[in-house]
Each structure stands twice: as C-alpha cells, then as structure tokens.
C-alpha cells in the first residue's frame, strides 16, 4: 500500500515537472487520389507523405518534433479544396504550410491564407506573379513558375537551332483555361525580342478530341510545338503528334505535361518527346535507399511502393523536402522547435537550398538551388529538359538545370503583381 502511494506520488510529480508536451508540426496534404486526375495526384501525395514519414522514422521528426501529415481528398475540385483547407487549418496547434496542388484552389486560398496567416506553397503552379514577396507575403511559388518555364523552353529551342530562333515558328498548344494561358504574354514578349512567329492553339477542357488542332499544326508545320496541358489533354496531344509524324524532339511540354502517365498511352510514338522538369528522375539518389529502408520495407509507405522514382512521386518528395528545410530554418531563426505558422513563413522566406544541402540530404542535383528572399518568393527559376525513351519506358534528363530569363520574368511579374495590389488596395511591404 505504502509502495503504491509512493509510486502514485512519483507519477504525479513527473507529470507536473515535465510541462506541456510538444505538439506535432502539422503539414496537411490537399491530395487528389480519386477522379480523372488521380494518376498524377496519387504518386505526388505518396512522395510527399513518404518523405515526411522518413523524417519522422529516421530523424525522429524535425528538431525532435514529429510531423503530422493529415490528408484531405480534394478530387482536384476547387470547392472541395477550400473545404479541405478550412477543415485542416486548425488541426493540433494549427497548420504550418499548404501545398494546394491546383491552380484553381491556389487562387481561392490566396486571400484566405493571407487573412489566416498561414504560408501557401504553390510549387511551380498557381499565380505566377506571387513570386513578388512584397505583395504576396504569405504565398510562395519556388523553385520556378510558368513564365520561367516559357523562357526555358524557348532557350532550349534556341540552343537546338544554334542560338537563334529568328524566322522560326513556335505553336503553343494550351489548355483553354487560366493555367494554359499563363505563358502567352511571356512568349509574345520573347517572340518580339527573338524574331520567332508564335501561333496560339487553344484546346478546350478536357481535351479528348484534338483533331482540328493537330490538322492545323500539320498544315502550318511550326518548327517547335510547346504544350501547356493537363490530364487527358497531354496524352491525346502526344498521340496526335505521333499520328501526324511531328518530330517529337521538337515537341516540348511544361512540367505538368511530362509524367509517365502522359506518354505511356502513346506507346512507341511518344519516343523522343520532351518536357521541362524541376526535379531529378529515377531512383539513383541515396535518399531512396533510406526511403526503402525506413518507409517502404517498414510497411509505412503511403502507396504500394511501386511508384518510387516516377516524375510525380519525386516531385511530391521534393515539395516535402522543401517544407522540411523551411521548418528547420524556422526553428533556427525562432530559437525553438515548436514553431508557429508565422515562424514557418519566416523560415520559407529565408530558405537557402544549395547543392551542398541537397548532397547532404542524399539528393545531389535533385533540384535547382533555391534561394528565397523577402522580395523573391519564386526561387531560382531554373528547370531541366527531360526526354522520353519509349523503349526503356523512362525519362532521361538531357540538360542540366537551365536558368530562366529572370529579367523578363521579373519585369512581367512586377507589372502583374503591382496591378493586383492596386486593385486590392494592398500596400507593398518594405523588404530590408
């Protein structure tokens, strides 16, 4: 009896002296594992979740604090995405970062996160001019944006032509939506500057029928075709290009038109097709050995482990890595590990991922170097070109990371973001 009393007293003393336990760091996933876009949504969500699981299992979390990764299914639907945001933002001590995975959801969340004070990372999608951190304090789109992508595609085409595109022609096949129209202004500016002819060819959603568009391309025979597509539009366009025997190495898609799912349906016809990408491809990086050991083999993988190394899986993993590095920076700046959303934002704004950082993480040259500042929420803007090998059924990176025409992109982003600030009565903040 006496022993029991002593044990109870010791237990009470232990609870009182331990103080409050540290809450998890909440990184919600607005994923889409169902619906027409699930083939891209599943591997991305798996990559994002698996990397966070790796950090929990191998490192014990970030600075000793575990990461909670609640998933909410959006079905790539804007209304559901907003509902997911509302239902997850107060989990635990509050969400620290959102990756909305849809341009439509991003646009809806920009005013919400600004009011709620939660950082939003629309990685290489969403509102391009959000790269202006003076106006979009809570929104980040590093490492690259659509306008960067447009200038990189043009640069690559120019390199193929020996440096000049004067007198050449480029057709832009684009999803007839705000997303698809994103590169038009940049390409128009570049066509004036570099002397190439630009033809705009819109494709209505969902893009299952593109006969008219490809008959036009067959007649006009542009030297290059760029594509800003999504979902079924990509695979149909690649099939149609193969059908009209368009030279596939002159057909270049943006990073959302360059996953395995886009090229596989066209079979051998897709051989040689190119797309931009801002992450490495394949599993030839040391980090995958850790993912296999701590996540897949331990039975803790989000999926069945078969999509490791695919474009979208690697992209999800990269997004999670950037979030983790930002959280580490936030902990370093704030001096404590239990960070708030505002401190996470400060961490994102001071993010500096160098080649040495990537090397140390077991991801050498996996992505471009990312240096974020108060003014520049868009990172470096670099991307590589990858090419599809239909026989081996894999993408091969054929260039190093190509820097974009940042002078032009910044000029256009300033114009657009300042117009937005004027319309919405936003006073740009000072950056010291």
């Amino acid at each position, binding site marked *: 009896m006496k022993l029991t009393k002593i044990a109870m007293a010791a237990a009470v003393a232990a609870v009182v002296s331990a103080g409050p336990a540290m809450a998890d760091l909440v990184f919600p996933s607005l994923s889409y594992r169902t619906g027409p876009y699930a083939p891209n949504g599943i591997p991305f969500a798996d990559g994002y979740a698996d990397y966070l699981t790796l950090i929990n299992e191998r490192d014990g979390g970030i600075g000793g604090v575990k990461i909670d990764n609640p998933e909410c299914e959006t079905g790539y639907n804007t209304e559901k995405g907003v509902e997911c945001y509302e239902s997850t933002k107060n989990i635990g001590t509050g969400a620290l970062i959102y990756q909305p995975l849809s341009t439509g959801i991003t646009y809806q969340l920009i005013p919400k996160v600004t009011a709620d004070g939660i950082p939003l990372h629309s990685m290489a999608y969403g509102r391009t001019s959000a790269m202006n951190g003076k106006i979009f304090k809570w929104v980040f789109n590093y490492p690259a944006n659509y306008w960067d992508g447009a200038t990189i595609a043009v640069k690559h085409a120019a390199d193929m032509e020996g440096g000049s595109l004067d007198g050449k022609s480029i057709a832009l096949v684009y999803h007839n939506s705000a997303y698809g129209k994103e590169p038009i202004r940049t390409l128009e500016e570049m066509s004036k500057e570099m002397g190439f002819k630009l033809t705009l060819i819109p494709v209505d959603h969902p893009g299952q029928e593109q006969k008219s568009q490809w008959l036009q391309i067959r*007649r006009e025979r542009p030297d290059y075709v760029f594509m800003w597509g999504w979902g079924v539009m990509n695979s149909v366009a690649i099939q149609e290009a193969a059908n009209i025997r368009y030279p596939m190495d002159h057909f270049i898609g943006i990073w959302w038109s360059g996953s395995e*799912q886009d090229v*596989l349906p066209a079979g051998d016809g897709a051989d040689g097709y190119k797309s931009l990408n801002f992450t490495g491809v394949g599993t030839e990086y040391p980090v995958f050995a850790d993912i296999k050991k701590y996540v897949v083999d331990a039975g803790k993988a989000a999926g069945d482990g078969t999509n490791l190394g695919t474009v979208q899986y690697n992209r999800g993993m990269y997004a999670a890595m950037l979030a983790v590095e930002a959280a580490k920076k936030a902990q370093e700046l704030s001096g404590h590990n239990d960070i708030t959303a505002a401190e996470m934002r400060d961490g994102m704004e001071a993010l500096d991922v160098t080649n040495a950082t990537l090397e140390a993480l077991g991801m050498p040259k996996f992505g471009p170097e990312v240096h974020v500042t108060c003014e520049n929420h868009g990172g470096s803007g670099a991307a590589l070109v990858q090419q599809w090998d239909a026989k081996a059924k894999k993408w091969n990176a054929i260039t190093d990371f190509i820097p974009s025409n940042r002078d032009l992109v910044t000029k256009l982003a300033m114009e657009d973001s300042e117009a937005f600030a004027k319309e919405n009565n936003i006073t740009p903040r000072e950056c010291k």
Partner: protein
Amino acid sequence: MSPDFLNFIETFLNGLMAGVMYSLVALGFVLIFKASGIFNFAQGVMALFAALTLVGFQTGQVPFAHLIRAIFGVEILHWGAGMPTILALILTMGVMVALAFLIERLVLKHLVNQAPIILFMATIGLAWFLEGLGDLMWGADIKPMDVGLPSGGSFWWEDLTATWAAQGSDYYGMYIDTLDVSAAIIAVALVVALSLFSQYTATGRALRAVADDHQAALSVGISLRRIWVIVWSLAGFVALVAGILWGAKSGVQFSLSLIALKALPVLILGGFTSIPGAIVGGLIIGVGEKLAEAYIGPLVGGAIENWFAYMLALAFLLFRPQGLYGEKIIERI
C-alpha cells in the same frame, strides 16, 4: 485542285470520322432510352468501366488488388500472365452482361412506374458507383489500350491525295487516322448488326414492341425485366466498343467517362429514339464542329468546337424539337 480546297475536304473527312466516334457513344444512350425511356447518365462511365475491365483482363491484373492488400495484407498485383485479347473481350462482355443483370435486379426492378426523373437520378448514382468500383477494381493508373487496331496517319492516302494538288503547290497530302477508319467500319458493322437483330430475331422484335408501347408489350406476354437486361447488355456492348476506340486514342483513364458530353449534342440533334439519328446526328456534329473550328475559330480565338456543337444542335431544335429522326411529339389537349 487548290491546296485550300483540299484542306477543306480534309477537314470535312476528319469531321465525319470524329462524328462516327461521337455516334458510337450516342448509340448506347439511344438503345436504353428507346426500350425503357431512361436517359442513362452512366453510359460514359460504362464505357470507362468496360475499357478498364478489358485492359485489366488483357494485362493479367488482379481485380481489387489494393483492397486485398489493405484488408488482408497480401500483395498480389498480377496473375503473372495476361490473356489473349479475344478471351479478354469475351470475359469483359460477360462482366457487362452480369452488370446489366445486377442493374435490373438492384436498381430498375424497384423503380418500375416511377417518374422518368427518378430513373434518371438513379443512373446518376449508378455512374458514381461504377466509377468508384472501377477505381477499386483496377486502380487509377492510365493504361494503354491495344487490341491490335491500326493507328496513325495513312501513308497510302497521303501519297494518293498529294497528287491531286495543282502542280507546283507545296501540298503534301491529306491526313486521315487509320484508327478513325477502323472506327467507321466498326460503327457501320454495329448498326447493321443491331438493325438485323431488331428486324429478324424474336428478341429483337420484342425489343421493338417494348420500345413502341410498354403496356401493349406486357399484354402479349413480353417480359419487361428480361428485355431490360438484354437492352442494358447491348448498351454495355456498345460501351465496350466505344471504350476500346476512345481508349486507343487517349489511353484508358478516368476522364474517358466525359465522352458522354460529346454524345449529348448528337442526341439532341438525332433524337433520343433513333439509331440512324445517332449516326447521322454524329456525322453532322462532327463535320460542323471541325469546319467551325477551322474556319470560324481563328476569327474568335479558337477552341469553339465544344460549344459550337451544342449551338448547332440547339439551332436544329428550333425547327425540329423531336430531333432529326425522333418520333413526332403530339400533345392532345
């Protein structure tokens, strides 16, 4: 001939071919509407489900593999070998017949004599259910469809038509997709087979009797429930054909169910009760939208074919509210 005129013919021909593809989807709607007065919202999803099942059988995929893994922890994704296309086709058709049987037993039987809107709502539910079932059975990955049909531009046609252009012009022949030609042949065969079936078989005549008058058909001993199973099986067969041809174009993916949207203007134009209407309506829509995209599109920024198809169908409705071949609407007061 001038290249411009040849381009016009090329656009016209490709419109006809696209129209055939739309007709194939519309046919499924017509079959069910004719026999039961139900506008089957799930027809597009049936095409998706049939295509998913066919590819699953062909590639030796284990159905419900992810569900089995989640419940029992056993991971068997493939049987180890696929099966010949012909066997996969037969088995898929078997699945579609079983599906028709289940739909009749679990859905339609309980809704006899309900208002058409109730039956329509039931098919919306069916569409959601089938989409989820397809995902659960075969996964969400995009799958290439290969049943041995040719695809790609025809060299022979290109070389032949290149000689039609005026000498000295930079014309390099007309484009026609061999897959579209196959689709046209299949569609013709399908319509002929359906017509022969409905004209010369007892079941076909029973189908027509039910289509004409449910009450009268019942009074002469035709089983409405049996007819419904047959009609839904036929619609399942048409959905399988549409799924194969559309899947060969884009891969089998969940947006395949959206092909139903392409059939709606065809149905408005051709009428909901006429098989020839579905074919002729499809051809008119196909040609109309392709010519509009090529010649009006550049003037208004392009990407007009989707809404133009509906506009064309609505314009027809002004003159023939029952559609081109639909039964004349007579309202007695």
